[in-house]
């Protein structure tokens, strides 16, 4: 307990001194450039933590921190949502999903509304629970919604292997897993007026720092960053240092977790179960090649998209919704005409407002 308290104090003091150094460097850069630094993070947890710790506000005078495509919900295409919701209406079918998906609006409905109308939906914390549920309920068709990035993929791969070993005939995966590096590359094709990137520590823990070494090719410095207050500040400080020294490099400010090569076991697990899709659709970013995972042929009998017929009409989105612009850093949530008016967490119009880690949700809750 005392050790814990001691550590907390030291961490607090370090944070304070780091914050001062960050501010000095930040203000100096603002003076040089004649404007605020515009940085982008691409991870939902960063979106939440930078806001929750108050750091986004503390550095707000010199850093404009934008949220890129880092929330799995936000980048899920409307049509995928509609197809998932249509599965929920099938007889004897149970949808198993992470909690975030419950309130996301599709074109016509949400899972929460489908539950109220009698659909069966189970919230899980680990994909293995879905396999367990399927094993215990052989008369129920269980569909697990595989959503997330490289971070959730290894656990989902473990579930796929388990279901396959158990030879379950009532278990399927709806794969909408996405890959962060190709999305970043696609984003970087466009001139964005950004000064640098805060890279997602969790994704880098799986893929390694080297998965992001393409960033300088596009002219951007970037720093792999962790999630504790000290990590968050350390990441920003490293990035500002790179900017000040005009070094287009990929730094690692989370080296106590992220290795150069990442987590080999996790990567092998992903490769074993998932094949890279030629083209994947992203909300806000459009079609991006090699940016999504589908199941390996060995496991394609578990692919819900091949087993179920899902007929949905073309997705309808609100023309005023600016989610696409928000996650590409082209506008802030507050600049969307719907933000806080027609679009709030209880009446979300676009997906960035639904998840608390969405750019708009985090802005609404914390700023």
């Amino acid at each position: 307990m005392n050790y814990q308290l001691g550590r907390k104090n030291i961490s607090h003091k370090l944070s304070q001194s780091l914050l001062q150094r960050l501010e000095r460097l930040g203000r100096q850069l603002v003076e040089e450039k004649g404007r605020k630094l515009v940085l982008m993070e691409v991870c939902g947890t960063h979106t939440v933590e930078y806001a929750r710790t108050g750091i986004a506000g503390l550095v707000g005078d010199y850093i404009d921190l934008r949220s890129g495509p880092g929330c799995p919900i936000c980048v899920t295409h409307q049509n995928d949502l509609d197809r998932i919701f249509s599965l929920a209406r099938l007889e004897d079918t149970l949808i198993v999903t992470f909690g975030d998906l419950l309130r996301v609006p599709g074109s016509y409905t949400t899972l929460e509304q489908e539950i109220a109308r009698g659909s069966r939906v189970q919230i899980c914390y680990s994909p293995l629970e879905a396999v367990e549920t399927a094993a215990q309920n052989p008369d129920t068709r269980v569909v697990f919604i595989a959503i997330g990035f490289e971070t959730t993929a290894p656990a989902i791969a473990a579930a796929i292997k388990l279901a396959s070993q158990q030879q379950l005939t009532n278990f399927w995966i709806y794969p909408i897993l996405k890959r962060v590096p190709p999305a970043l590359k696609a984003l970087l094709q466009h001139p964005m007026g950004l000064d640098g990137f805060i890279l997602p520590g969790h994704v880098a823990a799986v893929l390694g720092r080297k998965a992001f070494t393409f960033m300088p090719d596009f002219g951007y410095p970037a720093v792999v960053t962790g999630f504790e207050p000290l990590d968050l500040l350390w990441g920003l400080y490293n990035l500002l240092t790179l900017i000040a020294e005009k070094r287009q490099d990929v730094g690692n400010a989370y080296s106590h977790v992220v290795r150069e090569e990442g987590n080999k076991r996790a990567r092998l697990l992903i490769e074993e179960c998932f094949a890279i899709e030629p083209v994947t659709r992203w909300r806000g970013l459009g079609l991006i090649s090699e940016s999504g995972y589908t199941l390996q042929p060995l496991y394609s009998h578990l692919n819900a998209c091949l087993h179920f017929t899902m007929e949905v009409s073309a997705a309808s989105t609100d023309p005023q919704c600016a989610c696409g612009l928000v996650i590409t850093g082209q506008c802030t949530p507050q600049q969307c005409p719907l933000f806080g008016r027609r679009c709030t967490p209880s009446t979300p119009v676009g997906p960035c407002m639904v998840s608390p880690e969405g750019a708009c949700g985090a802005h609404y809750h914390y700023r």
Partner: protein
Amino acid sequence: MGKNAHDIIISSHGDGGLLSHQLLQEIFLPCFNNEWLQEQGDAALVSFNGQKLAMTTDSFVVSPLFFKGGDIGKLAVCGTVNDLVVSGARPLWLSAAFILPAGMEKSELKKVVQSMQETANSLNLPIVTGDTKVVDSGNPSNLFINTTGIGSVYPQARFHPAYIKPGDVVIVSGSVGDHGAAILAERLQFTGEKTPTSDCAPLTRLAEKLKPFYGGIRVMRDPTRGGLATTLIELAAAGAVDLLLEESKIYVKPEVSAIADILGVDPYYLASEGRALIIAEATVASNIVEALKTVPGAEESSMIGAAREGDGSIYLHTRLGGTRRLRMLSGTPLPRIC
């Protein structure tokens, strides 16, 4: 789209957040409209033959029925007792109504009822009337309990959020979010010493210690559904003041914050079932905290913030020195993907 939650009842209508409020405004208040209900306190304050009484009712649905630190029976007694206590009343009588699921084991029901009896006995509080109904819901652990309580209001207790003034101090009688975290841990099937324990407990002993200060207390609440944040947001709005909270003063137990971190939920929105939230005049605040600290279970009482002029917003001063707003919860806290 944009129409969700407008035509049918969905589970978010029951979480005490924005949708619950909208439901009240849209359906219940227009129909049941009267001066007592308009107050929207934890209990209605009514007068009869010159005697001031408090009356409150609450229904309890919790899954699982038994959890670390309590069960639905104990919760059903404490919840209603605490609503009376924070309204400045001494609980006198309780009712208990049960909606039993067909298929429930009698032994399990007996455990719940015995737990209610033990809790009520410890408070010398008789359960004077009750009811049972059975529904065939298909889930034998779908037990619902409603309790109603009547108490007599102490004359010195004149609590109302409208009395909150800039400069008043916000006090909480211990750690926050314990109950909510305990329930989440049970649902995750985490077991062992290091998992959170529900703080479910009656606030009657605490109220005894507070009585000498009733004159200086503006308002009391128990931060149950929606947690500390939601309760304070309601008070700030009703009192038309801003509340500025200090993150470093709000005690969240390590095991509670661990569960909250794992699930990506904010502990300030997790329920407490044995904590009092007090807004008092600054002059008596430290005396109140000292008095609270003598009560077993309330040793961690502290002043967590203060009121200032404003429009009903809540701000949290973070450990790092930043400031962020706390907003009303919209929808039950959901575990995040990553």
